[in-house]
């Protein structure tokens, strides 16, 4: 950050980028809140055509939800390893997180394709539209997260390795990743189970 030596860098004591990320995540709640609200409103209504309950594959989605949940564990382990300055372990756990995230994404692509073949298209009815936009928006977040993680992993290959002070830092990405996970916790219940 700009400023001389006489400048206090963080008036609140929270690292500036991390604070920025928390503010961003707080607004993300409103993004997903709007999407979920729309979904809930239309869920209670009658609509023509195929219903979601006709196409769901709950065992499959449960497994992919579990995969995403576990990616949060690997993420926090990567963070922990970096706090203990263990570069090797950090990279391993980072890669594991990116892999789990990719598995989840692959699962979502498979699921969308299956639904599509069952005649459940984006504009089939209001319900399919809300489903695809809501879960697709989440999927986009996971995708961006995976890109971030791989980026971090590549940076971690360099000699200096990763640090918790650099601009593009692990703690910052970890927060984002966990947030994407908690959104799915809500979506899994709201979209699939209820």
């Amino acid at each position, binding site marked *: 950050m700009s400023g001389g030596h006489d400048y206090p860098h963080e008036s609140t004591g929270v690292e500036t980028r991390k*604070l920025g990320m928390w503010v961003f995540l707080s607004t*993300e709640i*409103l993004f997903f809140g709007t999407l979920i609200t729309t979904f809930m409103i239309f869920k209670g209504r009658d609509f023509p055509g195929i219903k979601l309950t006709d196409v769901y594959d709950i065992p499959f989605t449960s497994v992919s939800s579990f995969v995403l949940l576990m990616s949060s564990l690997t993420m926090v382990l990567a963070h922990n390893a970096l706090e203990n300055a263990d570069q090797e372990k950090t990279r391993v756990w980072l890669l594991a997180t990116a892999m789990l995230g990719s598995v989840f994404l692959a699962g979502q692509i498979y699921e969308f394709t299956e639904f599509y073949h069952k005649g459940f298209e984006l504009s089939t009815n209001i319900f399919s539209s809300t489903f695809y936009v809501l879960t697709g928006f989440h999927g986009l977040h996971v995708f961006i997260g995976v890109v971030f993680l791989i980026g971090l992993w590549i940076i971690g290959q360099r000699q200096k390795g990763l640090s918790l002070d650099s601009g593009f830092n692990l703690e910052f990405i970890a927060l984002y990743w966990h947030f994407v996970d908690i959104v799915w916790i809500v979506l899994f219940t709201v979209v699939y189970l209820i």
Partner: protein
Amino acid sequence: MTKIIEPDKQTNIFRRPSSEYGIWSWLTTVDHKKIGIMYGYAAFFFLLIGGLEALVLRIQLAQPDNNFLSAAEYNAMFTMHGTTMVFLAIMPISAAFFNYLLPLQIGARDVAFPRLNALSFWIWVFGGLFLYSTFVFGTAGAPEGGYLAEEVGWLGNAPNGGWFGYQPNAGFKYSPGTAMDYWAIGLQILGISSLVSAFNFIVTILNMRTQGMRLMRMPVFTWMTFAVAFLLAFSLPIIAIALFYVTFDRQFGTTFFLTEGGGDPVLWQHLFWLFGHPEVYILILPAFGIVSEILPTFSRKPLFGYPAIVFAGFGIAFIGFGVWAHHMFASAISPVAQAGFGISTMIIAVPTGVKIFNWLGTIWGGKLNLKTPMLFALGFIGMFVIGGLSGVTHSVVPADTQQTDTYYIVAHFHYVLFGGAMFGIFAGLYYWFPKVWGKMYNETLGQIHFWTMLIGFNLTFGPMHWLGLQGQVRRTWVYAEETNLGFWNLIVSIGAFIIALSILIFMANWMYSKRKGEKAPFDPWDARTIEWTIPSPTPVWNFSKAPHVKALDDFWHAKYDEDEEGRAVRRDTADDLLLQLEEEGLNPEEEIELPNPSYYPFILSSGLPFLGYAVIYKSIPLALIGVVLILAGSFGWATEPLEEGFRSRKEEE
């Protein structure tokens, strides 16, 4: 004199930009002051365009049964007038103030994320250009059974569904053509810009305060910036999603807001006004902040009830989230909701009233110095009270049902947004003119500007109250001779041209004074806050050393002491202090780290319009160009350090 040293090493693909003058310095700058100035000029440019659109509307309405504009062109003009004034004029002019003043008021060298700051500016510029490119590329189209396409001139190639874009009118069936897509995607891009700057300002205020600048010592303008940033951060996501739905409905055949596929048009109204009402406070709160700075300075008294003003500001921001459905009393919402929102609309008048009384308490018994900023601030209070009172009348649901979509509403919100926000903004422009340019504006021209604008404003929007109550409806391009509305409409149109004249006077004053104005004294207004403790125009490094703040209105207390009766007495040392501050401010003791300029915010944001065009024209090549620009910008950004080659001497030893 300048002790900032050039970056010497090349750590990136391109050499970093380093010019301090000329066009490249502006395109690549990350300096909050330069960004603020660019926001100001660009927003003023759009303000002029929005004003011209308003004049075109008023020419059409000057006489009954006029045919200066066709219905289609009229629709396009009022839509673009509203959209421009809200998103491209008032919001960014406020952003100009935030950018320039916020770091100065909290004693910082820049905002928390300087490059993100440049990014939000450039995204905003490209969003505005994208929206306005509709006049070149867009088509309004003709709905079945509507007006004929041949009637539409180039003025009609713009979005025509209103700035509120009500569905299904703004949907594909009733607004074919691409114009409303430009609107939806344009607002989406502008929203990203505001969202990014909101994060930046929140983090800046929380984390970048100088020593001793506790929260309750911050100037009120900073507090209001904080409140606005919260409102932006929590309301923009809602409209972003709603605009996604609109784009999906128009482009990909979904039916989120269209009843034929099971969608819900009233849901759009909810989502729009969930954003739209906080937006009203986003537009007015900066003016509240500006006026709260000016009134104490020109009354030579402390602000009356500083904590009350701060908490009232946050009260307004919070309750502002709970009144949105009063825009929808004439829509299909339940009676319970109508009652609830009527009550909350009455309640929000309370914190607003608290502020008005605080301002009156501030000027009460003060030694008023009626310079132009003060005149505008006083004009603000008067006009805003009128607008506020007509606003409270909307909380009475039966009355509101009667007034909905009449000129009464138009009168109300122009008293709030023009008489309120714009008067406050002009007050601020005059007040901080010496700070930004180091010159004084011409006081006589400033006073003429104020009086012509006040008269023109009241002639324009005053008569709209009774025109509306007599039943003249908004958004309608003609009225019949027999309605007898012609006389007052003519007066309104004349008033609009008087406002235009006053704006010309303002521009003349600005351009003349900026070049040939007198050199501004160090502390021209005998001000209270720390942005006046540094030389004008502000040096690149803002503060040559971090100020240590000991009290609210710190600068005032440095200059003034109190006698036994509590009256302010100027200290003997005050004049020496000013000289000393000027000397120190221009000559920092050590070299100062400043963020380097960067190409990447510009490159990254230039990709967004391409993505917009790609969605509208379903074009893969355009999408690729957009994605490549965005990826190139992000990659360059991520691999480029914020500061390089800028080392202070101490560190090198």
